[in-house]
């Protein structure tokens, strides 16, 4: 009989608040406050309640945004607050100026700085405060059979080739990278993160069943304390329940890749999978798999831009966030630059445990680069093994040609930006990517060192 221990507790604080710095802007707000969280709060869940009030000066506060990068939640300003109204007589918006909700800190980095921003009905935005804190790493009791070999990267960096190369090592499994680009780990971690969102798990207790959509994901943000008056149940749902969801996600990832490995009768130690740095997937994999490995794969971002452009032209569609006929300068500034910045932040967070691979090194010195990489991963990195991998990987396979956008071989793709990018765009790229290029070991002039 399947049994689950009830009332299992995680005793350490899962989220701690270091500071709450107010930032209310008197031009836009008559009065406002972030009431929760408070500095020094120690929470037993990965769920962070956010409450407060905001009274606009010239316009009503419509909603409050809680965000860090791509992670963002919206809290409507509509809670009845008689106490605030009493303290602000004559302000008609004070009576319903409260906001409250709860956010899932697993969408955040382990050390986070959350912006709390009021959006007013006249379109103005003003910061109410910044919440800094840290959360415990996500752990589960699951003991994985396979460890992840995560390739954290952006699009058009040679990641498919790298996965293909790694999969030719007997200790690594991957499924037909040039045909499918499997995302089993991303799939299950995204599911885990969604179900760990308080907006979702509170639906079990106060279900707003609405078909045909996935109503159980919930919408908006929900105050768990109102919906879950049983404090112990609330704590369990925001902690042990989440860990158990994580264990299941890991079990499914194992199941998929063990099945893939069984196709070739392999007995691998690692599964290799590409991960975009968004949505915190590589970070959570890092937390759930202390024995896992992570490779940051980068490419001169100017060449990456050229390759994105060529790939989209070749396929006749708009991919990689190149969403329609927007000016390329805007694409660089609004799409690529934040992605590169995010990748850089992730690298800074995990540089101590991850390996950096530059596309250019992989293409120009494949044997040396691969040998060094395998050595760091801790699998057979002998000369014979590397030669065998390169020979096997060089065999032509279906789907490989579709990925190429240069005719003179991969070497010709290095530094292509000098001939492919128009000078004004080169200048924009130089300015936008200068810091990241330098930090990833590229010379300011562009050629890889």
């Amino acid at each position: 009989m399947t049994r689950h221990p009830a009332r299992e507790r995680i005793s350490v604080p899962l989220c701690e608040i270091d500071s709450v710095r107010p930032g209310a802007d008197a031009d836009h707000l008559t009065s406002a406050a972030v009431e929760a969280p408070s500095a020094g709060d120690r929470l037993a869940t990965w769920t962070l309640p956010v409450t407060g009030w905001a009274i606009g000066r010239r316009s009503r506060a419509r909603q409050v945004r809680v965000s860090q990068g791509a992670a963002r939640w919206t809290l409507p300003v509509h809670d009845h607050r008689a106490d605030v109204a009493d303290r602000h007589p004559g302000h008609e918006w004070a009576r319903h100026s409260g906001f409250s909700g709860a956010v899932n800190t697993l969408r955040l980095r382990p050390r986070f700085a959350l912006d709390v921003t009021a959006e007013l009905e006249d379109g103005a935005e003003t910061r109410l405060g910044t919440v800094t804190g840290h959360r415990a790493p996500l752990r589960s009791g699951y003991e994985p059979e396979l460890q992840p070999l995560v390739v954290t990267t952006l699009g058009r960096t040679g990641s498919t080739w790298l996965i293909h190369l790694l999969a030719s090592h007997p200790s690594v499994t991957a499924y037909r990278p040039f045909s499918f680009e499997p995302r089993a780990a991303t799939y299950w971690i995204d599911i885990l993160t969604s179900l760990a969102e308080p907006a979702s798990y509170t639906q079990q207790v106060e279900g707003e069943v609405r078909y045909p959509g996935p109503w159980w994901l919930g919408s908006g943000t929900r105050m768990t304390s109102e919906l879950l008056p049983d404090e112990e149940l609330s704590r369990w749902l925001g902690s042990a329940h989440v860990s158990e969801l994580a264990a299941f996600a890991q079990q499914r990832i194992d199941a998929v890749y063990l099945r893939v490995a069984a196709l070739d009768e392999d007995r691998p130690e690692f599964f290799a999978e590409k991960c975009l740095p968004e949505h915190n997937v590589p970070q959570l994999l890092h937390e759930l798999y202390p024995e896992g490995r992570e490779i940051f794969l980068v490419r001169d971002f100017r060449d990456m831009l050229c390759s994105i452009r060529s790939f989209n032209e070749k396929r006749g569609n708009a991919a990689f966030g190149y969403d329609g006929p927007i000016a390329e300068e805007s694409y660089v500034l609004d799409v690529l630059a934040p992605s590169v910045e995010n990748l850089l932040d992730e690298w800074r967070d995990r540089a101590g445990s991850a390996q950096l691979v530059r596309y250019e090194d992989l293409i120009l010195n494949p044997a040396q680069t691969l040998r060094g990489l395998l050595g760091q991963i801790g699998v057979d990195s002998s000369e014979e093994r590397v030669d065998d991998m390169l020979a096997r990987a060089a065999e032509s396979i279906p789907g490989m040609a579709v990925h190429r956008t240069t005719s003179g071989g991969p070497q010709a793709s290095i530094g292509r930006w000098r001939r492919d990018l128009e000078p004004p765009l080169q200048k924009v790229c130089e300015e936008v990517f200068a810091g990241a290029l330098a930090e990833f070991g590229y010379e300011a002039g562009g050629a890889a060192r």
Partner: protein
Amino acid sequence: MTLSEISAVEMHAVDGEDLWGFHLDAPEAGAVHDAYAFDVRGWALGRRAKVTSVELKDGPRLLWRVPTQIARKELSGRYPLAEGTDAAGFFTIVNSLNLSREFEVLVRARLDDASRVDLATLHGHREPLRTGFEPGIDPLMVTTLGRTGSTILMKVLATHPDIVACPPFEHEPRVATYWLGVMTTLTDPVSYRRQINPTGSIDGTWWTGKEPPLPRRSKDARLAHWLDVDAVSQVAEFCQSRIEAVYREIAAGAGTPAPRFFAEKYRVDRIPEMMWELYPRAREVILVRDFRDMVASMFAYNVKRGREGFRRDRFDDDAQYVVKQIKESVAALATAWEARRDSAHLIRYEDLVIDPENTIASLLRYLGLDADTHADAMAAALSARDPETEWHRTTPDPRASIGRWRDDLSEEARRACEQVLGPELRAFGYPLEEVRV
């Protein structure tokens, strides 16, 4: 192993003024699938107006609306005067676990002027879903509509030491419905195939799989079979384990250390059917109330809350609401009772209020629980007054709420009830002469 089978494809006669033509490439009659899923593929070429999408419906429930956007080059030669042959094709995947075991799916074209043309009806069946999960707590489903006394019944049930329910009862706990919703999504090929073949954008809730392009079945037969069969069962098993884990947690908090049942309200949809598949030892109470009193109670509760709930806001007047909304819900409940009357247990709200001891004893016997020890305490809980139940009341005394419709409903609403609810009132043993206005 056949898991889904299309027994017949019934093609509907189509007016030549509406369409140039259509064809269903798949499924064919007699098609068998070793998955809880089947593809639906074909084309439809509008004549009066362009066909913009194809809809798949399970009764009133819309399963899919898929745009026609696949080029069918062969059509331009066959229909030289037709426009839109470059986007007449459609393709989608139906998760048969989202259907009853015996199913009918209507395939219809949606034209640019929002009109619909029925194309075909697929008749089929699927195998029941089985998992390796052995439940330690079995479901006690209370399948009902709104304002039937279900909240007080949940409270009564929760007083039994063998039954756990999630307080507070003014909320609508949906633990099992939640996890079966999760299960239905994650056992849908449009979702799980994306682990291997992540077609489209990887953003937001991409993993629910509803955004095109839809992933095709892997050509690697062993991997496809594992994903379609074993992995589906394993995901379902996990969802069952979560239901049990949540209720064990609730039971621990409620001081009910070893419950035999978890009691939960269910809407009249396909979830109770699926629960029966997954839990052979399940129990189900179909809770009804004179539907005229139910409507009167809904209206009173809306007034008390100061907002139009129960979808009343979607209709102009009470009579329309009864004819369209209430009739559909009541008919669905009667159908559910008819389908499961051999295994389910009927409780009428009136019996619960007027004769609680015997009604509860009968229920406990159905559940296989000791009726002598706890029936009186449960009956006492029925009449207990507390702020939680007080908020739900719309009459001072439950007995006073029986037959309230005679005074509370407008003549139009009473006539509407008379016109459309007669068969269901009769089916549940309510005297029809009461319907006369």
